[in-house]
């Protein structure tokens, strides 16, 4: 067989990624050097208090979203993994369904719930807690709630696999040797689930760190995050040098976080890695 065949098969797809993804990305990096010095745009970004507040807000939202999705995902995945087969399938189906539903639809659902005439305001007015509707939308909490809703299924699905591999015997052994449920969780379940937690956290963090739709709909102009900031700079103020700088910072921070989480995972779980 000809040695060149595998290359011929791989070349078109690889070429497409290079031409349509990597070269344009290089172009964006190139745009950031368009200042007096090559680093002028980066210095300008970090000099502005407004830019920094957007960066901090984005990091905070992504971190809180990741933490909450772990708290919601761990017990849920545990229950799914220990359920009988038919119920397990149903529960996985119910986690996949939102994942395949449009992010616009899912963020929109929180507008219906948190809006001035929304579900929450109606209930609170109905039971007499408040007289006039309170503004729940366009707050950082609204964005976080929307993102947790968006990404928790991803965390659950990342965890179900590893949870299933924790054998019931191991948990049985821990408790029969006198470990309390809390101790079993901390010393047995958590270390064994760590690979799933790391995969899930990377997915949720990078997803919420770069999300556009949810912060745009639930946060609006008051809760600008890097993704919506990039869009504003590019399409509203046509400051493409700054838009490119934001883009590069997003890529760099995403990569740094992925590497950091992987090394953290290796330290926490030297056997599994």
């Amino acid at each position, binding site marked *: 067989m000809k040695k060149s065949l595998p290359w011929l098969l791989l070349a078109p797809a690889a070429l497409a990624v290079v031409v349509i993804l990597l070269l344009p990305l290089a172009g964006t990096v190139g745009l950031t050097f368009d200042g007096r010095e090559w680093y002028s745009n980066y210095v300008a970004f970090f000099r502005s208090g407004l830019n920094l507040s957007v960066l901090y807000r984005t990091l905070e939202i992504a971190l809180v979203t990741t933490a909450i999705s772990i708290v919601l995902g761990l017990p849920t995945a545990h229950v799914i993994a220990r359920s009988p087969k038919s119920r397990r399938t149903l529960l996985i189906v119910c986690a996949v369904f939102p994942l395949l539903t449009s992010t616009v639809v899912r963020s929109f659902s929180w507008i219906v719930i948190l809006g001035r005439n929304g579900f929450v305001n109606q209930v609170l007015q109905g039971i007499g807690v408040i007289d006039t509707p309170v503004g729940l939308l366009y707050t950082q909490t609204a964005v976080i709630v929307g993102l947790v809703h968006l990404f928790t299924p991803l965390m659950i699905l990342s965890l179900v696999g590893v949870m299933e591999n924790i054998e019931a015997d191991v948990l049985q052994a821990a408790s029969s040797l006198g470990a309390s449920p809390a101790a079993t969780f901390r010393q047995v379940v958590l270390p064994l689930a760590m690979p799933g937690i790391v995969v899930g956290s990377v997915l949720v963090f990078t997803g919420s760190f770069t999300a556009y739709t949810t912060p745009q709909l639930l946060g609006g102009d008051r809760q600008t995050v890097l993704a919506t900031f990039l*869009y504003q700079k590019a399409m509203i103020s046509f400051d493409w040098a700054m838009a490119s700088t934001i883009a590069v910072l997003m890529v760099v921070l995403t990569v740094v976080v992925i590497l950091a989480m992987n090394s953290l995972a290796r330290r926490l779980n030297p056997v599994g890695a």
Partner: protein
Amino acid sequence: MARRSHPALVAFAVLVYIFLLGPLVIVAGTAFSDTQFLAFPPQGFTGRWFANVFEVSAFRETFWISLQVAVFGTLLSLLLGIPAAYALSRYRNQVTKAFANFFVLPILVPEIVFGFSVLNSMSVGLDLPIFTTLLLGHMIIVLPYSVRVVSASLANFDYSIEEAAVSLGSNRLKTFFTIVLPNIRSGIIAAFILAFITSLNNVPVSLFLTGPGISTLPIQMLTYVENFFDPTVAALSVMLMSFTVVVMVAIERTLGLSYFAR
């Protein structure tokens, strides 16, 4: 499996599921409300918001564009992805392993950054037509799904069957189309469905690659939601969720939904 979960954990999991699915139920409810604004619990019962979805010409037009982009973008990604997936699973070595990682790149790069970069380099830099850049952009974001799902299905393929056909005198190309392709048909269908729904739902890439006269359905919905508060989008959401159900049935029949929980 023998050990049941603690009742408190089960209750917690039930609450998490209410949190995940409740909002979607609420949207479905408001879609039938006979009010000019979004109301839950719905007041009255009407199907007129569903009719209104078809009245809004922007929804009709962008739906067709979204459909075209999703179908052709996915087909293009399969055209590139199937040969690549074949090479990745057929010739296992360090080089193909590196290529397998390379094809994950479109998922690693934030979509909003990718969309902006394509706008900058291809729409403006090369002056390509809007529809072309939109199609190419979508092709790249779904390429990883095509490569991965087809590779997974090829991993179960017994290459000795292919060897047998070749040694009996069939040429390689013919063997690929008559022996290999039919055997991974369900994998290709699953890849198509996953890539299709990913393209159909995409916002961040389309955001930068739409222009005068050419927009996609999610972008149009985003614009509508920011300007109108009637239940039309809720009705459209119900229609899209029904489509998601169809997609899930199709995935279950081809790939198995367990694909999502590995």
